[in-house]
């Protein structure tokens, strides 16, 4: 059986999706994804020349609405769901590494 996806590709896809697959789990995920992508490839049998893709089946097309901000008055309830807060803000770890700035 030809390989549809390699361990390196699985690693790359996981990285794109902000997931880390442990090294010892890599063969397990690769084998499963390989099988499923093999199934995906059966679609190549279907003649789709000139067929429009369907991205949604809604009967509503380009519904417009006014862009109005609404205050839900639930600031505290929202903050209560955040894992880390300080002074009414959501706290996150360092975003920009400044350790090299003083060089």
């Amino acid at each position, binding site marked *: 059986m030809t390989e549809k996806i390699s361990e390196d590709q699985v690693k790359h896809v996981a990285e794109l999706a902000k997931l880390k697959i442990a090294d010892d789990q890599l063969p397990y995920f690769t084998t499963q994804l390989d099988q499923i992508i093999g199934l995906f490839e059966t679609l190549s049998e279907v003649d789709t020349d000139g067929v429009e893709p369907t991205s949604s089946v*809604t009967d*509503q097309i380009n519904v417009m609405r006014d862009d109005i901000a609404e205050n839900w008055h639930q600031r505290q309830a929202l903050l209560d769901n*955040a894992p880390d807060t300080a002074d009414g803000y959501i706290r996150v770890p360092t975003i920009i590494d400044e350790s090299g700035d003083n060089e």
Partner: protein
Amino acid sequence: MNYFDQSLASIHKQLVNQEISAKDLTQQTLDNIKSVDPDINAFITVDDEGALKKAADVDAKGIDADNVLSGMPIAIKDNMVTKGLTTTAASKILENFKPIYDATAVDKLNKLGTITVGKTNMDEFAMGGSTENSAFKITHNPWDTTKVPGGSSGGSAAAVAAGEVIAALGSDTGGSIRQPASFNGVVGMKPTYGRVSRWGLIAFGSSLDQIGPITRNVSDNATIMNAIAGHDNHDLTSSTKEVPDFTSTLDKGVKGMKIGIPTEFMAQGLDDDIKQTVLDTAATFKKLGADVEEVSLPHTKYGVAAYYIISSSEASSNLQRFDGIRYGRRAKDVKDLEDLYVKSRSEGFGDEVKRRIMLGTFSLSAGFYDAYFKKAAQVRTLMINDFTNVFKDYDLILAPTAPTPAYGIGEDVSDPMTMYMNDVLTLPVNLAGLPGMSIPAGFSNGLPVGVQLIGRPFDELTVYQAGSTFEQETDFAKQTPKMGGNN
């Protein structure tokens, strides 16, 4: 309250006649859950305090005699947000999440006076067909507790089947209402895409997801559909089409109705008992005056591939929001923001969710998009055309809901391919956005078997009409499992 012998209408009558108060009914429902649910595990969260408070409010205002849902205890699948009530989507990443608003479908029911007694178990983020992918617990099938309840709305279907509640909401992306309804011998409706607002339904596949009712009978199902259907400014894919009274044609029969059975649905991989159940159902419809013939949906065999590409791609986008910043689980000991994202997501999501996210990311990634995502979206068009062609000549499609009855806990969960193939009969309906309902239609070795009725877009009326007619003629929906309740 022994829900096995009741309907929404019969309970409503007792409430109106003050034979029982909403508070007592709610207390009895909570007691029922307490005694039955240890064997079933249908609930992730039971809200004793909130339910009793709401019931007292309803009693104080008085039961509305014109509103059958007034004071009615129900259950909600745990992927619909409920204000102040923990909502997890059965994922560790949302373990302690308390939403600040109600999903529109839930809000509509609340306003009619229903009482949410709890949130039901499901496959994590609705990804799965057995409820075994829940991060919290395994739900058991009330008909045989060694079997799965199906999924992903397995908790909702099992709770109704076990007589814990009279009705529940589920959601259906590729069969997640209909397949568990079939496995549990209850009625489950996935409405037309756009019929019910998705606002507050934690998104899995946004072009496929719909909320729908799971009940003991067709009439109750139609009653709840009346309550949750309609346009919503918070979901601009919800339809502005007029919502009919879904109970208005339940007694109109099926005389002259043209019903098609897709040859492809009856082909490979179907248990003999399932096939026989569909044929018996067809015979009943014929006897009642319908024309039943074989029809063809030629692209059926490509459905699983197209569906898993599309739904996984949509999931990979939708699940990007779970990043450990604003809500949900945040990993400890992280060195920077990137590390926080990766660790929080890797710890928070289960294996099946990771698989789907990676399949979707792969299908959408540079160099693969045309061969996978675009191709699947084109095949989707061909599948829609297949249905359109059939519905030129037929009012309804009759098909099996699932290829087998409920299988054993632990049997399929390790093999995603087998799991995915089980959805072959339900997911075409989502790809085409059609209404589809599973109704109890037979048994196989003591386990319930459902059949699926599929209608034209926005023609839930015909689906309910045919379903109700079949139900009146047969007694499958009246059967109850040997466990639970007062049985």
